[in-house]
């Protein structure tokens, strides 16, 4: 993406609260118009701080933030025209749902009739058309959530920020709301910056995901790229389930390398971020990419001892002891022709070298 296309742009942004620790370290990020970008990371990784700087509630200690080409560093929050959905919704308890939605329109001095029409239209959009007279406290968690989204949308901002909006909901409702928010985004074409620590949420909803850790974006790419080709050990660990094998790089050849595990086993893997022979590396391997009784064509063949079997319906989780790692997980699809497995059994496993990423050690 060319720099001029960026709708939101962080340029060399740094942030410190106490003058001692940088919570955000040299952030450079371009967000395109209409994009759904998620900032994903564990708590304390700086993602919410970035959102607050964008919303205008926290000043950047250094660097510039641009919105639609102009620097907004010195624009107060109420003049930025950014819609925001808060973690606990922040619905005003002394106002009805309709009054909550009317608030942003009233402060813009819109006419009564226009306000009424817009409020109703937005409420209908989130399927709460009949709830305008209720107080927020009279609504369920999911309904409150939808009101919060509606309130951020009602004044038609070009940019909407969401700060872990689904955190307070139970699992089922959360999944449903994920789709609803995604559909609203597709319908309206607004730009969304979404903050969460839930990786499933990030993968489901986003066009691109920025993985934050320690105030730095570790990787910025599409959900698929993030899962398939993690750039470093942190991303591999944080996104999805991951088996980790530790060893020393033996040989490097282009994008491939050979790693000698601590118990002496030699593994062929994709070289991602190891640079020299003799370096320690952690191999990252997705559980569903491992085969039991592998075909000859797979480059890596090992033997493992089954320690535990967990039946999960669509698949069986097999925990086994492989190359000295007894937390090694293999997912076996529950097919009609699957082999019978039992605890203590010795089985042959294998995987393709392209599914095995040689990453740095953390």
């Amino acid at each position, binding site marked *: 993406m060319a720099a001029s296309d960026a709708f939101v742009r962080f340029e060399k942004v740094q942030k410190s609260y106490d003058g001692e620790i940088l919570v955000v370290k040299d952030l450079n990020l371009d967000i395109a118009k209409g994009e759904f970008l998620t900032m994903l990371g564990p708590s304390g990784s700086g993602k919410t701080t970035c959102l607050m700087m964008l*919303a*205008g*509630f926290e000043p950047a200690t250094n660097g510039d933030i641009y919105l639609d080409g102009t620097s907004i560093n010195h624009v*107060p*929050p*109420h*003049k*930025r*025209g*950014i*819609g*925001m959905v*808060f*973690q*606990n919704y*922040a619905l*005003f*308890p*002394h106002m009805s749902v309709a009054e909550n939605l009317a*608030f*942003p329109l009233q*402060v*813009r001095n819109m006419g009564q009739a226009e306000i009424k029409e817009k409020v109703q239209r937005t409420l209908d959009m989130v399927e709460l058309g009949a709830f305008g007279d209720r107080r*927020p*406290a*009279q*609504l*369920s*968690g*999911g*309904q*409150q959530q939808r009101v919060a989204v509606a*309130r*951020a949308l009602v*004044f038609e901002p070009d940019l909407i*920020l969401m700060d872990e909006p689904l955190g*307070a909901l139970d699992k089922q409702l959360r999944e449903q709301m994920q789709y609803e928010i995604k559909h609203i985004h597709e319908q309206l074409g607004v730009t969304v910056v979404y903050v969460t620590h839930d990786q499933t949420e990030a993968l489901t909803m986003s066009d691109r995901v920025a993985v934050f850790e320690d105030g730095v974006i570790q990787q910025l790419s599409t959900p698929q790229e993030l899962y398939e080709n993690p750039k470093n050990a942190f991303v591999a660990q944080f996104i999805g389930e991951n088996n980790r094998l530790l060893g020393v790089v033996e040989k490097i050849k282009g994008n491939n390398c050979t790693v000698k595990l601590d118990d002496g086993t030699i593994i062929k893997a994709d070289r991602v971020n190891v640079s020299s022979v003799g370096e320690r590396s952690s191999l990252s391997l997705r559980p569903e990419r491992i085969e039991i009784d592998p075909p000859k064509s797979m480059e890596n063949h090992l033997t493992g001892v089954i320690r535990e079997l967990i039946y999960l319906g669509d698949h069986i989780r097999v925990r086994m002891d492989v190359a000295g790692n007894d937390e090694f997980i293999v997912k076996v699809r529950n097919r009609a022709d699957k082999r019978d497995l039992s605890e203590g059994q010795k089985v042959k496993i294998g995987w393709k070298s392209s599914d095995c990423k040689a990453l740095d050690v953390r």
Partner: protein
Amino acid sequence: MRISIHFREPNHMTSTTLDQKDISDASADALIMVDGVPLKQKLAETTKKQRSRALLLTVPLVLFLVISFVIPIGQMLFRSVHNPAGSNVLPNFAIAIQDWDGKGYPSEAMFELFVKDMQNARKKREIGKTVGNLATRMNYTIPGTRSLFTSTSRKLSKVTEGPYKEALFKIDKKWENKVIWRNLKRVSRDYTIAFYLAALDHKFDDDGDIIAADKLYQIYVSNFFKTLKLSAIITFLCLLIAFPVSYLLSILPLRTSNLLMILVLLPFWTSLLVRTTAWIAILQTQGILNNILVSIGLVSDDGRIQMIYNQTGTIIAMVHILLPFMILPLFSVMKTIPPSYMRAARSMGATPFTAYRRVYFPLTLPGIAAGTLLVFILAIGYYITPALVGGEDGLLISNLIAYHIKSSLNWSLGAALGTILLVTVLVLYWVYNKLVGIDKLSFG
């Protein structure tokens, strides 16, 4: 202080709690247990023991309240209408005089009973039943009659036979005044509203009709209004000062706000007397504040401002003393308002002022309501501070009550004033409840 009357529903009522309510509403009357007992009855049986044990725990408090609160207040209410001085001192006369129609003089028989009762009372000298008691009581109705009773009592010991009427008239010409006898008839009744009339600047005239009291004695009603006015001013000033302080306390980090909170509570740990005396040192005409004003040339040396021993002194000292009662409920309410509300308002385009006015301020109303009610009711009955710094002008109604209880010993009038004060507070409370809703208060 931890009076919890919370009005705010939990922020997130989930769908499950709503559902549960529906279920219980729909099936409460129909459910029968497997052994044929209705659910409600079964539930009452199983919780009965628990409830009675809980009740038992409250017994000491109930007893304490009855002894320290219900009985004294009941006594006060009773005393304000019940004053048996007449019938105590003149038991036989008090009954007989009621047959007199108030025209002419009472009959000779009544005069005889009067003289005999007076002689008896002088002889026995029982506490509360002396001629002095009657004289004091009569003095409330007709100022200046005290000595008439006491001196007559002394001289009556020589009177041994009738006609008693003439004997009395001989002792003192004042007995010829029929007004005395009419009042004596009224005083002989145990129950009277005379003290309420007095508390409201009214009295019975010589014919027993209710009329306004003499201008000189009209002090109570105006004092009631003055008390209400000063309390309102004090409450308003407290709110004005407490609001920003509470806001500051609520947004500061916990460590700092705790430290500042100690400063707010510090006055509680200092003797009321010390605090009030400090104000005297600061505000008196030769005090610190005046000295500073003179030294910087704002006022001339002979133009020193009178800031104490008047209403100003009462207001200043009482605002200081009652301020914590405003800060605490305000603080506890403000503490529960998440900062995200203001942020949400700002993100939607509201200027800081609009966000404050339309979002923050309405949410503090329960605290404001609680604080103003608390301060106002405390102020309306305040006694020590106005007594010390109020001078004559800054005296409140409670000081008058104290005067009647402690100095003039007209307990019935004091009780009547106290009862009127109590009723006033209850009426205000009722109006307040109608306006704000007591369930909306939050004391923190």
